[in-house]
């Protein structure tokens, strides 16, 4: 989880200053927008080598869900 949070902060400008934990409902943060979504998808593709659809990310309740989603594709 720590690495995922680090990767998000380093690559998604909108999340750079947001305090993120495993339980953060990131898709409902005020900072979350279409560009944050695109950056997150690109980060996952380059850091984890998997492609995740935008709808699947939109369905995540928190970062635990996102991590599970990434791991399920690897």
């Amino acid at each position: 989880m720590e690495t995922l949070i680090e990767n998000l902060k380093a690559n998604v400008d909108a999340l750079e200053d947001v305090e993120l934990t495993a339980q953060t409902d990131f898709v409902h943060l005020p900072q979350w927008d279409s560009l944050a979504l695109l950056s997150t998808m690109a980060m996952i593709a380059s850091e984890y080598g998997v492609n995740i659809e935008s709808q699947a990310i939109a369905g995540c309740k928190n970062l635990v869900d996102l991590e599970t989603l990434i791991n399920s594709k690897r």
Partner: protein
Amino acid sequence: MQKDLFSLEGKTVFITGGSSGIGEASAHECANAGARVIISGRNRERLDDVLASLKGEGHSALVADITCDADIERIIKELPALDGFAHCAGMTMNALLKFSNWQDIEAVLDTNLLCTIKLSQALIKQRKINKGGSMVYISSVLASVAFPGLSAYCASKAGMQGFVRVLAVEMAARQVRANTISPGSVQTPMTQAASEGRSEESIKADLAKYPLGYGVPQDIACAVRYFLADASRWVTGTDFVIDGGMLHYR
């Protein structure tokens, strides 16, 4: 006392092409406005001459060829966090397309467009531009004017505008602005070299297209200062034509 929105006091700005013409004038303008200025170019002597004449303290120079990947990598490491980036390095080549060799065309597109993108990408990947910072690029009015002999140059400057418009949107999450300035003909070593070998008549005919005559580097430097200052806080993704009235004159 009200804050001077045009001041660059406390800001660190990086100016490519700072050793000559528009970049040199921009370095002076920014230093006069209180910025700490870092200039770059390929020629150490010319950089040192400009550096020695800048007002204020703490300025520096980085020798780098922007078409060289290793140089970009090195300057990105050496640069501090920046509040402003003014990209003034560029080149031109004048030949009708039929008579242009591919090497020259590539050199223009590489220097003016591809390396602009490469350097910008390196700056943003390393988060060298502080939040609330500003990036300004010298395009050209020739991005939207058909000037025979400058097809590669015009394409490179039009490409730069397209690139910067997208950059502006992608950088907005960090409150970083990105804009282009499109000068008409400004008296610099670049235009001096370009006019060599041209007839008196064609030079006169070109000058006649400018209701306010040709510009001087300071005319563009003032706009660079504006784009790097807090005065342009709400300006991004735009192009500012400064051309003495040429573009719309018939």
